[in-house]
């Protein structure tokens, strides 16, 4: 399945773009997606932490990504 991934802040700079399209196997979990991203962009492992949001909600590692989901990579936030 094809998944659109949004990248923000430093993740956008690491990925070189604010939007990436990834080809994932059906049943891919958030944890698996993190592995794939860290393999593609090793600098992501240097982040203090980061979260994955699916459809505007923070997602747990065991959530399974679906084809129409909006997936976003959320590095440590720093608003305010």
């Amino acid at each position, binding site marked *: 399945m094809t998944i659109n991934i949004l990248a923000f802040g430093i993740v956008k700079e690491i990925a070189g773009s604010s939007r990436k399209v990834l080809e994932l196997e059906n049943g891919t979990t958030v944890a698996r997606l993190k592995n794939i991203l860290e393999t593609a962009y090793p600098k992501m492992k240097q982040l203090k932490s980061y979260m994955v949001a699916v459809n505007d909600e923070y997602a747990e590692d065991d959530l399974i990504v679906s084809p129409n989901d909006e997936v976003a990579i959320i590095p440590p936030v720093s608003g*305010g």
Partner: protein
Amino acid sequence: MIDIKITNEILDAAACIAKATDAACGGIAVFIGAVRNQTKEKKVTRLEYECYESMALKEMKKIAEEAIRLWSVNNIIIHHRTGILHIGDTAVIIAVSSAHRDAAFDACRYIIDTLKKTVPIWKKEIFEGGEEWISAHA
């Protein structure tokens, strides 16, 4: 009443306070977050705020609803600015009105503390000799 806004425009504290004003409320607690000229030893020249808007609005709404649940405050205004900000510019305004001041203070502080932990907004500091996404690295 909950009023949440993310905007590239200058924030207006007086307008936020006016919105929070309520005949049933004896106190309004307000927090104004501004860009200061110094972090650690670096001299900041400007900040760039980036935002995942759809999710940020949802997270702010969650925070406001939780504050109302915890302290029964009457009105919550949260306005956050994005884009390029300079020293002294206002990045965020939170105004909370309540019958009694303790609830307004507690809720206002909870909102800014939680916003800084959960709302997907990021700032990059541009200082003399470099730039850095805040909080990104350990």
